[in-house]
């Protein structure tokens, strides 16, 4: 391996190819007990009575009365109960039935009756008076900007729910033996689960052990949610006489009961003076659902990102996360970014249209530069290569020519081309790494000269086992075979933080690189050595004030420029994606194939989010709860993705790497909606945008004729 970016075989390739990798659903269940959750059938109310049928020997029921510790799932704020008596959404866990035969457990569950005292639920986020979080940003003088404006242009934008559809549903196995609670399963963040278990079980830190099993996709869906499931399984495990209790969701249960991407409602007002945007007022609402879970952080990112990649000197942003009586919305790749970047990107095209100028050129005229202030009056410390990246995709796609050519088409098929510019702030927002996470990584050198990576970070498919191995192997000048990466086990690994926020390579990867340099210096042949590396906050960062939203929200940013070309079938409303061109700057790719896979995977999720994945809730109940109703892209849907990697090295990241995993989910949706705007000659402002919406527009067009 000469260059860190040159791809190597993924270290978990073979076991996943030949089916021998053991996911949580694959453990032999012959000696296990199966649990199924009793879930509420109403959206809001008090549980008055649970009538369980007579249970055969070996079967038992647990609920909130069985919790030795707190009936709270520790996340950020601890409002999610382990088992509820005060129902806040349809599908909320009330208790768990457990027994040796899964089918029998299921039939007992269907005979179980719950009596409720019904209360009035709230489903409309915009009408909710219960606001979990309310954040405000002010920069410059918005009043003055608006007072002196030539024009003030308004726009409102909506985005829908998105379900993760990791191919492997959530699952957890727990066992209580010899005073220790051992939980393993499909999860992104072992120490999040660990922290939640300590609170719920009232056991000591040492007596709670969390291990990750091979995890079949996460995308954020296994960030906050597994903490709840782990607590529920643990409470059951206390009563299982040393047997393992296993809960693996069927697909429908996973869709009904686990977190989704927050729907959003964004209102924008932009002031324009001499053809330039001088001020922005935005009002961001993300629907939190019934509990806070990750909403605070999602809203932070949404609020901070609401001015997009543009240098707007005067801004006033309000972001709110109201409560509704629906399944809690939580972490999902992009974390608030896909919502607000959709809004600001569409807004910029609408303003350009109003001004009668080309939208791509209009956007490029406004992009931030190195040294500019961020929305939170921090600084873009490093070069912003968006101009070069945009030039690449605009040229490759022949954007300007096509964009003009596709105006005013007639005939059955109409083509369109669209363009977007986005960023993703790498790592935790604000001082999170320094004040909350305080990551620690270990490298353990064995006597035989092999080196083991000890971190809490997980590979859920994104390739971390391979990229971490490469970082250590390259730094130590050892072949990858000499590096050991095992699935994290909290009894063996230090808390290097969660695998979220596009932080793992940039932050923990760098700790490993530094540890490896030290190990190389201190290397003693034939001896066991342990190197501990602790997080150091980059000294260039302007401290973040999380109350007033001032300072550096992120040390650096990843950048993306995207062009999407579509064909609209005016007879059926069908939207085809013909081509995608994406330029991505994620710093140095630690493995080119892996990074390209991340970019392609993110784009397709983003395109699905925009034009395919519709998930609606009626009276608190999810309508699209099967894979034939919640539609994700298949292999023939979005071919012809052209990915270009632009490298602007980040000096504080390992080999120049910065955050990669999430951003690719941000840029696709605004680009495809812009393309549809181009094809239909109209302004669009909501996703998902479906064939029905195409025909609605064409119907209006006919009426206008």
């Amino acid at each position, binding site marked *: 391996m000469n260059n860190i970016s040159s791809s190597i075989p993924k270290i978990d390739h073979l076991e996943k190819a030949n089916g021998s990798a053991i996911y949580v659903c694959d453990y032999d269940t012959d000696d296990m007990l199966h649990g199924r959750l009793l879930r509420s059938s109403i959206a809001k109310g008090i549980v008055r009575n649970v009538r369980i049928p007579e249970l055969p020997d070996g079967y038992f029921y647990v609920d909130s009365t069985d919790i030795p510790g707190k009936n709270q799932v520790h996340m950020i704020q601890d409002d999610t109960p382990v088992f509820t008596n005060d129902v806040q959404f349809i599908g909320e866990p009330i208790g768990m039935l457990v027994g040796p035969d899964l089918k029998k457990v299921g039939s007992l569950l269907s005979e179980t009756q719950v009596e409720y005292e019904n209360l009035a639920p709230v489903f409309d986020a915009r009408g909710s008076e219960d606001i979990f979080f309310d954040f405000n940003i002010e920069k410059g003088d918005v009043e003055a900007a608006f007072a002196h404006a030539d024009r003030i242009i308004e726009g409102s934008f909506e985005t829908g729910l998105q379900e993760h559809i990791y191919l492997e549903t959530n699952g957890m196995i727990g066992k209580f033996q010899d005073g220790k609670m051992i939980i393993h399963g499909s999860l992104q963040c072992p120490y999040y689960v660990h922290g939640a278990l300590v609170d719920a079980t009232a056991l000591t830190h040492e007596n709670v052990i969390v291990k990750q099993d091979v995890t079949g996709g996460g995308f954020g869906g296994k960030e906050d949610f597994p903490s709840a499931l782990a607590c529920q399984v643990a409470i059951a495990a206390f009563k299982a006489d040393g047997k393992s209790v296993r809960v693996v969701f069927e697909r429908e249960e996973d869709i009904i009961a686990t977190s989704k991407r927050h729907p959003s409602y964004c209102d924008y007002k932009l002031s324009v003076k001499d053809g330039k945007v001088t001020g922005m007022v935005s009002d961001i609402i993300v629907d939190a659902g019934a509990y806070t879970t990750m909403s605070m952080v999602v809203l932070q990112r949404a609020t901070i990102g609401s001015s997009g990649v543009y240098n707007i000197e005067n801004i006033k942003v309000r972001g709110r996360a109201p409560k509704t009586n629906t399944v809690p919305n939580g972490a999902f790749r992009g974390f608030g970014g896909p919502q607000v970047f959709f809004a600001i990107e569409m807004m910029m095209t609408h303003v350009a249209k109003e001004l009668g100028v080309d939208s791509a050129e209009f956007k490029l005229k406004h992009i931030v530069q190195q040294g500019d202030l961020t929305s939170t009056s921090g600084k873009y410390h490093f070069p912003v290569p968006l101009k070069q990246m945009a030039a690449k995709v605009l040229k490759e796609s022949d954007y300007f020519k096509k964009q003009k050519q596709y105006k005013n088409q007639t005939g059955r098929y109409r083509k369109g081309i669209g363009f977007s510019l986005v960023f993703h702030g790498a790592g935790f927002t604000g001082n999170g790494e320094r004040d909350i996470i305080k990551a620690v990584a270990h490298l353990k050198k064995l006597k035989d000269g092999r080196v083991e990576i000890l971190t809490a970070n997980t590979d859920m498919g994104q390739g971390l086992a391979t990229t971490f191995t490469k970082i250590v192997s390259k730094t130590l000048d050892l072949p990858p075979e000499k590096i050991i990466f095992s699935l994290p086990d909290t009894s063996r690994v230090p808390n290097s933080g969660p695998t979220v926020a596009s932080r793992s390579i940039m932050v923990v990867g760098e700790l490993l690189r530094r540890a490896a340099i030290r190990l190389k210096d201190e290397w003693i042949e034939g001896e066991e050595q342990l190197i501990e590396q602790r997080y150091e906050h980059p000294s260039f960062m302007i401290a973040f004030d999380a109350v007033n939203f001032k300072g550096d929200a992120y040390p650096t940013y990843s950048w993306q420029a995207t062009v999407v070309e579509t064909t609209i079938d*005016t*007879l059926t409303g069908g939207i085809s994606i013909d081509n995608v061109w994406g330029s991505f700057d994620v710093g140095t790719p630690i493995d080119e194939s892996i990074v390209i896979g991340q970019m392609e995977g993110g784009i397709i999720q983003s395109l699905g989010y925009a034009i395919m994945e519709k998930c609606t809730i009626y009276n608190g109940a999810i309508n699209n709860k099967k894979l*034939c109703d919640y539609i994700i892209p*298949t292999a*023939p849907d979005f071919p012809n993705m052209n990915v270009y990697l632009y490298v602007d090295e980040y000096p504080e990241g390992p080999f120049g790497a910065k955050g990669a995993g999430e951003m690719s989910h941000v840029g696709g949706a605004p680009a495809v909606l812009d393309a549809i705007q181009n094809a239909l000659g109209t302004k669009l402002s909501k996703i998902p945008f479906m*064939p*029905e919406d195409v*025909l609605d527009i064409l119907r209006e067009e006919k009426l206008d004729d």
Partner: protein
Amino acid sequence: MVKNLLPETLEDALTIYFGQPELVPYSGGTDIMVGSSCEDKNFLFINRIPELKQIRLDNEFIRFGSACTFTEVIENDLTPTILKEACKKIAAPAIRNVGTIGGNIANGSAKADSALIFMVTNSLLRLQAHGSERILPLRDFYIGRSKTAIKQGELISEILMPKQNLDNYYYEKVGARKALSISRVSFAAILDVSDDIIRNCATAFGAVSDVILRPSEIDNMLIGKSIKEAKAIKSTYIATLDKAIVPRSGRVSIEFRKDVCMNLISDFLESNGI
């Protein structure tokens, strides 16, 4: 436990079914195995009965054995292109390899993609029971939402597609994605013109209403007409269809279904110079 559920001939199958009418015929399984209750059902497996797996030609019909899988139908040289095309749009290979045309009809769904083609071609069903059989036009088989005219003890043994000129057809399936999709609207039409006279005009609309719509009385308006004459009555024809097509809402709206149907019928006519 499995005794008597695996007949090897059609005769055996009909005899068993006569004695145990509570059995659920299992052909491809791709519909009835969805959902957890299937494991408690008792199936009569008819998926390996040779008589039900043949595709052959006689003087009047192309005869499709009901247990032919979509893949087998696609791969058979006797299958007209319109049917191949519709079968290729069904789900994905793994479903097409076991799902059968008989099952596609028997489940009574208005979304059934192969059934749409059998409807537009005025195909007939051969229904066999122990000691009896009858031939029923497919159109009469559908009597309501998921309701069919099948009688106790009856199996669909063959689908009889009348021989006709199917060279000039129009077919469109509107699904939620390019593959693996359930029809949200489907439309098939046949136009046979010779010597400037419309010899046959047939349309069928799937996934719109409780049953597949086959407005043959309306289509008859165009039969026997020249293209020019057809053009003259086009607006009446379309208006009559417009009234006859009453969509129900489901995964998509009523307006969407209606628009797509009317758009496609117009395109079908225009593409034929009408």
